[in-house]
């Protein structure tokens, strides 16, 4: 059956969400946007001209769509705090947790000393450019797997700064995975500083590290679809198996950029495995789901969109998500979510307020917004 879509509201109404404080768990800053052009045979020439950019974004669809505007003319993505604030205002976002773009790939840098230098530079940069004034922005400072001690020192350096909400642990290119005890200094420092740990899924990258051996996949559709959720599943499995939430019971661990349905699958599967092989994980005195409900939080983007949004509400309830699911847009990426889509999931007004911002304020220990804008 065909449904005819008849709008009843105009452009202004559709883009506003003014009655609920919105905390956005995933906003990206752009260090640089390389502009690559070439030409090729039909039909790919038309695809190139009218649809997809060329690498380095893995043949992605427009990596950075014009937001909130039209296709042409291409409007530059915000590269300073004032422009970013303007764009987020258009999205009805009050508070935003800021992440890197290219620097999120730093875990793949083989030169440890160079990786440390970039990590430190990025952290100085984001503090100076985005976090000195009160704009509703919270970092997102970087850690790297190559040097856990240097990463822990970064946490100590910025601990207590009111605009630092968490330490970013990129989830792609990491070997061994984040549950390995070599990373304990990072977790100990984050727990002492009382800041959240932010696991951010990586892109459609061909890497030798689990789970990014994507050579068998030859399109964005297959690579991107498989990589984000599986990288967070691998991270989750690793830290649960290693008992990170048991050994650091005050840590809040946040999983970003793979939607939320995977959490239901992992919760059930990890509990099942725990029943069968408790001797492998005797330190887990409770089933994995207990830690996943208590200490872990899940960012919505890209929110799954079943034909009936009530189905996704069911998934959120299954994982205890009324208290642990956090809205995220992934601005300015091509697959960003508008907050209204998540707000439309059928929950009570109270639960909607928690998912759109209340849970994030608790997970990140941020002050409550002052009024709607909170800035």
């Amino acid at each position: 059956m065909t449904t005819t879509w008849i709008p009843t509201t105009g452009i202004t109404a559709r883009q506003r969400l003014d009655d609920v404080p919105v905390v956005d768990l995933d906003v990206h800053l752009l260090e640089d946007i390389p502009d690559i052009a070439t030409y090729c045979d039909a039909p790919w020439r038309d695809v190139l001209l009218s649809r997809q950019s060329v690498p380095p974004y893995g043949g992605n669809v427009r990596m950075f769509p014009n937001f909130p505007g039209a296709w042409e003319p291409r409007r530059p993505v915000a590269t300073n705090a004032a422009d970013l604030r303007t764009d987020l205002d258009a999205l009805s976002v009050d508070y935003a947790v800021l992440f890197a773009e290219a620097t999120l790939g730093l875990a793949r840098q083989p030169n440890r000393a160079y990786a440390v230098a970039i990590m430190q530079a990025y952290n100085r940069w984001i503090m100076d450019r985005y976090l000195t004034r009160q704009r509703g922005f919270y970092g997102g400072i970087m850690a790297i797997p190559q040097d856990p001690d240097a990463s822990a020192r970064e946490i100590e350096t910025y601990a207590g700064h009111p605009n630092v909400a968490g330490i970013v642990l990129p989830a792609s290119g990491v070997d061994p995975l984040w549950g390995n005890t070599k990373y304990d200094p990072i977790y100990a420092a984050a727990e002492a500083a009382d800041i959240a740990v932010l696991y951010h899924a990586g892109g459609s990258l061909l890497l030798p590290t689990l789970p990014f051996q994507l050579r068998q996949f030859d399109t964005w559709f297959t690579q991107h679809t498989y990589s984000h959720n599986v990288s967070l599943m691998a991270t989750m499995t690793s830290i649960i198996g290693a008992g990170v939430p048991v050994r650091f019971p005050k840590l809040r661990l946040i999983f970003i950029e793979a939607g939320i349905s995977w959490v239901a699958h992992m919760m059930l599967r990890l509990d099942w495995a725990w029943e069968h092989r408790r001797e492998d994980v005797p330190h887990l005195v409770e089933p994995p789901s207990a830690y996943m409900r208590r200490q872990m939080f899940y960012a919505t983007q890209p929110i799954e969109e079943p034909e009936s949004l009530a189905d996704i509400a069911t998934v959120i309830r299954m994982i205890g998500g009324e208290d642990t699911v956090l809205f995220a847009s992934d601005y300015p990426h091509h697959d960003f979510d508008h907050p209204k889509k998540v707000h439309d999931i059928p929950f009570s007004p109270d639960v909607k307020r928690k998912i759109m911002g209340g849970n994030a304020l608790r997970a990140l220990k941020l002050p409550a917004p002052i009024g709607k804008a909170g800035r």
Partner: protein
Amino acid sequence: MATAFAVAHETELLPGKSRIITVRGVEIGVFNVGGEYHAIPNLCFHQWGPLCAGKVSGTLAASEETGWRPRWEREGQIVICPWHSLEFDLTTGQCVAYPRVKLRRYPVSVENGIVKVHI
């Protein structure tokens, strides 16, 4: 009864051109596709993106008919939402990805050189 609203002079809306107007609080995109006018809402059903501000081009298809080889077709009559890339055929309002979704289409006429949309 439908009311006619002026959109543009026909010389301002040549083939390949489009214009977005606001009527009674609702935005409507009017497109000239190869000499024929088509009007649809400027609102994507998916996440309410500004659909009519999207690029107009064609679409890549592969079917038994093309021997499963990709073929670029319907050039000039497909608009793509600038937010999440859903494609719609301007001449029918049909969503390319979802057969179940079809956009409302508004009648368009030309009177004394003035393109008018009827709502």
